[in-house]
């Protein structure tokens, strides 16, 4: 952005912010330095682009007319409450927590955005305080190259296209989620007309934005729908586990079992996302776990173990 354009935009913003009545294009052209010398057609183009620039920063330019009874020319203004960062009084402990949040994002566009958020807070009188030596250190890394494009698309509500399993997929992205260190994008798959998760490391062609910002609405229950990325226990089995052993089954429910189990083992009902996951976990535990039922999974464990045994 040139210095001249920045100057024009700041002046336009101030003009729209300091007025209570709607200002017409004609008035804006007269009072905003930078529009005055433009020819008619050039002014119209400039003005449209400038409004877009302001909207891209999240500044809403209201349109309306001053006179309710006469067909007045349409005018513009900015509501101060929509523009300004409200006063926020943080305690010193809260400022330390904010400083810690400032260190969470590693090497990604999210780190830049967080730094810019701090500029706003500092300008508003709240300075995140990094002086306390933190005893907690949350860090999130982003190694997936498509993250930046998708983040921008999620925030601005722009459709994206990317390769997945060798196919081109089109998505209205709603959310980016990290689970166990891996990033997923969640949104409406336009081909399948259903909400879907895509793992960023599995992209086979880079994500590209398609079309305009604000192209769709994010459903109000997107957050709830996203919960499904949490494991759903579709497969259940009865397993004998050595008491006190560390395992990856999550919730276990003690159950009665008629058969004999070796000493030191107790019987539980366990659930995981897939039958294959149960078989793998039981095999990983070696003699500390026995899959008791159902019979077909029991056979799979035996087969799996034979692949390792002598």
């Amino acid at each position: 952005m040139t210095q001249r354009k920045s100057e024009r935009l700041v002046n336009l913003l101030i003009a729209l912010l300091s007025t209570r009545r709607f200002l017409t294009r004609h008035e804006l052209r007269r009072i905003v330095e930078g529009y005055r010398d433009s020819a008619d057609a050039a002014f119209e183009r400039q003005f449209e682009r400038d409004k877009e620039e302001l909207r891209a920063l999240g500044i809403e330019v209201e349109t309306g007319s001053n006179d309710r009874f006469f067909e007045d020319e349409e005018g513009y203004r900015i509501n101060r409450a929509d523009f300004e960062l409200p006063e926020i009084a943080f305690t010193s402990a809260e400022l330390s927590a904010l400083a810690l949040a400032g260190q969470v994002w590693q090497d990604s566009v999210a780190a830049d955005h967080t730094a810019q958020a701090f500029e706003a807070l500092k300008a508003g009188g709240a300075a995140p305080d990094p002086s306390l030596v933190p005893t907690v250190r949350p860090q999130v890394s982003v190694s997936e190259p498509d993250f930046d494009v998708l983040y921008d698309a999620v925030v601005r509500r722009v459709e994206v296209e990317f390769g997945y399993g060798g196919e081109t997929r089109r998505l209205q992205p709603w959310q980016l989620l990290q689970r166990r260190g891996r990033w997923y994008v969640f949104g409406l798959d336009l081909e399948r007309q259903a909400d879907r998760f895509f793992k960023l490391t599995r992209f086979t062609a880079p994500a590209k934005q398609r079309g305009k910002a604000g192209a769709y609405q994010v459903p109000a229950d997107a957050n709830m729908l996203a919960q499904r990325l949490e494991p759903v226990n579709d497969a259940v089995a009865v397993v004998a586990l050595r008491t006190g052993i560390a395992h990856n089954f999550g919730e276990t429910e003690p159950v009665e079992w008629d058969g004999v189990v070796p000493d030191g083992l107790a019987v539980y009902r366990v659930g995981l996302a897939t039958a294959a996951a149960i078989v793998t976990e039981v095999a990983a535990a070696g003699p500390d776990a026995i899959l008791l039922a159902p019979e077909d999974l029991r056979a799979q464990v035996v087969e799996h173990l034979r692949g390792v045994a002598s």
Partner: protein
Amino acid sequence: MRSGTQLTRLLRLVPFLSTRPGVEVSSVAKAFGVTEAQIIRDLEVLQFCGLPGGYVDDLFDVDLESVRDEGRIDFRNAEVLSRPLRLRPEEAASLLAALRLVVDLAGDSDAASSAYAKLSAAVGSGNERLKVSVVPSDPGHRAALTEAMSGSVVVRLTYHRPGTDGESNADVEPVRLRLVDGYSYLDAWSRPRQAWRSYRLDRITAVTPLEETFTTRGDPPTGWFDDVAEQLTITVRREAGWVAEYYPTTHVEAEGGNLSVTFPVASREWTVALLLRLGDAVVAVSDPEVAEAARARADEALFNYQPAVE
């Protein structure tokens, strides 16, 4: 760089400067993460901005010559922009997601969660666009550890060790909670081992503060497997390539139709469990002793599946 970057900065620079008369150019540059030359360029734009009207009194008042001479900024007549531009959507999303993590890691009762509440009320949290899910751990354990860390109190940990029977105890000097790939860890000096150790919080079953305090030993290592010298290379068939994505690796190489993956070894038990998990997808193992241990454990496990003798 996005085109709105300078504009965003200008709209925060004005309130920042007008509330800090005589502020040094160098400290402004530091607060906004740009060069001093850029701050001067920003001022060159702002000197021609202000209320519409075009009179000298309408413009912001800044004397660039004295800024260049003295390295200090006096910025006046800026009441029209007394508050900074609010957080842009992408800034709010990244800061709130980061702060959410601090809350998840540090526990609900502290300053992080009140800072989160204030910030989301001020900027409007809306739909969470960025989310990092954390494997849940006991808030009581986190609170006990946080308190022990701030008072340098030795604690007795009771925890599950993967691949072992029952629970282990260790008296440790807790120094830091860390979040890596969605899991929370405690970094602590282990007294029995006389070494830094990381403990996964979801594997800790009890935290008991002892009567004793400790003197700090300096910062624990920052790396993830710093205290692990041993490495193991296994060759797996393509279909088991997920292991390279799932576990920390130091080297991955394609070998014909197979994948050769080198891991830092957390413990012998972990490696044996990994081989059991992979089953017949393993083609070769660099350490024959580990391969033998896995075979023996599989044999032992298979014994449990023999038909009962009538």
